[in-house]
């Protein structure tokens, strides 16, 4: 019988292994399951990256203020109230009494100040460290040129936080609502260092606290009993499902595994719209987003130096056709760079719309531009895009459109990293790009194409444009005048600029009818504390 011993041991091992694996398949469902997006890059607010990351963070943390999706102006969160000095250079926040971390420890103002300084330090490697540049000493600190003690963020007592700005900022409050500025628990950070984000150490101050995070599967959060409003919180737990593919989100939603799907594949939209009366078609919620899909043109490339050529390439593209026929997901044709629904300070900002060119006009513009450069035809160029299916389809569609203008372009699919590298190196002629608003202000958009901006990457430098933006900044507080300047700058950008805005994104989500408190909004912001289930 001993010939059987080895196989038996092997069999037993395999069985044990299988049991262990199976034990991982069944997890009790949370009160609400939200199909989100890919895994967050990090739960450290300074490291998080995407809108999807921000949603998860919003359930775990809260800032001094939180964005109110409906009004567009931030609402009180950790801060009970705040005052702005007459000249707009000194902001003083008073914290709510009795704020606590999720481990029960009290939060005081020095904690928050420390957290802001940590965010600024180069060693943290915060992606959006320039958010606080308006604060005195912040830029020097994040560039490693000045000490953290020189940054003008002060906590004179346990419940007061004071920011002093070097210049007036048009939307400082909106900045403070950004997720990278969520407070980080100093006591945990100092104990565990970079490992503070692991599930067993994780401490936060938001409505929910982290239970576990299984990569590529889910992040489970449950009600934080120490949160200021914990008693009023309708949900006991939320599962953030980490799923990259919108098609999978839809399939899971249809199968009833998700209560909210935060994205819907474009290809399914027509089918969903075709059945508006019944699920899942009736669950589709669409809302314009503050995000623009556009093409960058490299002005250093042969033929692209003259604005007439760029104008022709931009304004001949029929965005209406693109949106109505190719995308069909509710995207809005982009005749301006800033999306509609944008604000300028507290005022709504309505961008100037460029007017499309007819084919003949476009040909004429092209000819003028080329003649000015001593060329007869535009050399064939490459249109770089990512391997994302939507990107590829848009690129293929554009390639087809440009042949009508007599321009040859070759589409080249690259992975996102390569595309970024080539754009950063200026090694491209035309490339797909997108910009998502960090906060709801037109300046957040238009400042991308200032000569000095790192987001420019087109080689386009236009003194009048820079001047207009500078003037707009100096007008902080006077929203109407500022909006006028911004509108003028935008008109310049559309006429001279190196971009082809194609469409403004649209958020698409599927929400089960029994889910309440889901308010579609331009920032794709989700207030987890407001969500509830009413069956």
């Amino acid at each position, binding site marked *: 019988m001993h010939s059987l011993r080895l196989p038996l041991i092997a069999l037993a091992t395999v069985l044990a292994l299988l049991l262990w694996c199976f034990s991982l398949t069944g997890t009790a469902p949370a009160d609400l399951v939200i199909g989100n997006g890919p895994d967050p890059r990090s739960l450290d607010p300074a490291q998080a990256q995407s809108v999807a990351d921000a949603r998860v963070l919003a359930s775990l943390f809260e800032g001094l203020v939180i964005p109110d999706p409906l009004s567009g102006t931030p609402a009180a969160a950790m801060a009970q109230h705040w005052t702005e000095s007459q000249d707009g250079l000194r902001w003083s926040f008073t914290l709510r009494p009795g704020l606590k971390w999720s481990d029960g420890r009290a939060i005081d103002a020095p904690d928050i100040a420390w957290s802001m300084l940590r965010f600024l330090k180069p060693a943290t490697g915060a992606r959006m460290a320039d958010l606080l540049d308006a604060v005195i000493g912040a830029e020097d600190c994040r560039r490693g040129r000045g000490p953290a003690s020189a940054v003008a963020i002060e906590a004179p007592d346990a419940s007061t936080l004071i920011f002093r700005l070097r210049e007036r900022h048009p939307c400082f409050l909106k900045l403070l609502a950004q997720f990278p500025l969520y407070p980080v628990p100093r006591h945990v950070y100092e104990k565990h260092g970079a490992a503070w984000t692991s599930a067993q150490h994780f401490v936060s101050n938001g409505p929910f606290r982290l239970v576990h995070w299984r990569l590529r599967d889910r992040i489970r959060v449950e009600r934080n009993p120490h949160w200021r409003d914990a008693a009023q919180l309708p949900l006991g737990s939320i599962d953030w499902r980490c799923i990259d593919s919108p098609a999978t989100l839809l399939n899971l939603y249809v199968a009833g595994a998700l209560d909210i799907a935060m994205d819907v594949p474009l*290809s399914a939209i*027509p*089918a969903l719209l075709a059945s508006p009366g019944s699920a899942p078609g009736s669950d589709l919620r669409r809302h314009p987003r503050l995000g623009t899909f556009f093409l960058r043109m490299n002005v250093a490339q042969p033929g692209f130096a003259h604005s007439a050529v760029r104008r022709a390439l931009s304004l001949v593209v029929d965005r209406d056709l693109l949106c109505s026929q190719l995308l069909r997901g509710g995207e809005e044709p982009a005749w301006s760079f800033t999306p509609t629904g944008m604000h300028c300070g507290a005022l709504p900002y309505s961008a100037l719309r460029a007017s499309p060119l007819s084919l003949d006009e476009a040909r004429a513009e092209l000819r003028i531009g080329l003649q000015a450069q001593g060329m007869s035809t535009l050399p064939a160029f490459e249109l770089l895009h990512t*391997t994302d299916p939507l990107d590829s389809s848009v690129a293929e569609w554009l390639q087809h459109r440009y042949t009508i203008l007599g321009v040859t372009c070759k589409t080249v699919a690259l992975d996102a990293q390569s*595309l970024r590298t080539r754009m950063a*190196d200026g090694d491209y002629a035309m490339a797909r790009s997108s910009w998502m608003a960090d906060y709801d202000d037109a300046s957040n958009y238009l400042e991308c194409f200032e000569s000095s901006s790192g987001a420019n990457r087109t080689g386009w430098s236009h003194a009048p444009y820079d001047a207009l933006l500078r003037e707009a900044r100096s007008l902080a507080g006077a929203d109407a005048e500022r909006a006028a300047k911004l509108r003028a700058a935008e008109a310049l950008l559309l006429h001279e600029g190196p971009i082809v805005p194609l469409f403004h994104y649209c958020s698409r989500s599927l929400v089960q009818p029994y889910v309440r408190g889901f308010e579609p909004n331009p920032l794709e912001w989700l207030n987890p504390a407001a969500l509830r289930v009413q069956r």
Partner: protein
Amino acid sequence: MKLCVTLIAGCAVLVLLTPLLPLADSTAVHLPRALQTPTLDIFIEHGEPRPTWSGPVAAPLATLREALFGDAQFAPLLGTDALGRCLLARIFVGARVSLLLALVASVASLSIGALWGAVAGMRGGRTDQLLMRGADVIGALPLIFMVIFAVALLRAWRGAHTETWLDQGAVLLCITAAVSWIPTARMVRAEVMSLRNATFVDAARIAGCSNASILRRHLLPNAAPVALASWTISVPRILVLESFLSFLGLGVEAPGVSWGVLLRQGYDALTAVHVSWWLILFPATALAAVLLLLGALGENLRIRLLPQQARGTP
């Protein structure tokens, strides 16, 4: 066997003569009819854009097509994809890419493998040890992962250097050829070794033939069947590798079309609310049919060319 050869030849002819067929333009985006289900209603359509063909063979054929069919063309019999492009036309165009790539890459891998194996087998001794140990090490690597890295690397490199000869086809070709020559090398080496020690080679050597003439007169003709048999096996393998890479988004890239790309796009379009089964079924059928035929052909050839081996190995 005869049936198999006929069918493969038929496929090849069909693929070669694609420009002659009244197919729709495989790149023509026609959004209003996106994701149209397969139809049997209309066979001929007029007034659609016609595909453009370039190249020494394709262009005259396309002209001939103009003369034969004018602007008549097949309706999207197999349905359309998410951009309203005719799947039938795309399968044909994809076949050209997939099959050509598999063919060229397999010839390349055959030459590498045959050379490697022949040198190892002829020289014997330390050279043989070195070469075959090298092949073993390469064979021990998790090749598919190396391939993924290499493709990402080469693509990034290509991304960084605009004007190079290294287009996506060349990248795929190099990679697939580079990872698929090892079995060929092993088979050729074994054959050459057994031949080298065969009596008739000894006889030739005693008769005073030079090494070169032995190689030319005796070894090559006798090793050729082995090489040919291994080649027929490597074609479908490379075809699968190509479609696998394209499927992962690492092979042929849109707007390029290969069967792997078509399948990838099929999966991308497939959702619970709109089950576009044809986008997966038809490319899959095409791929499976060709693989089946090539597999059967390979098996037949192996039995014919290497009767002594055919029984032993499964």
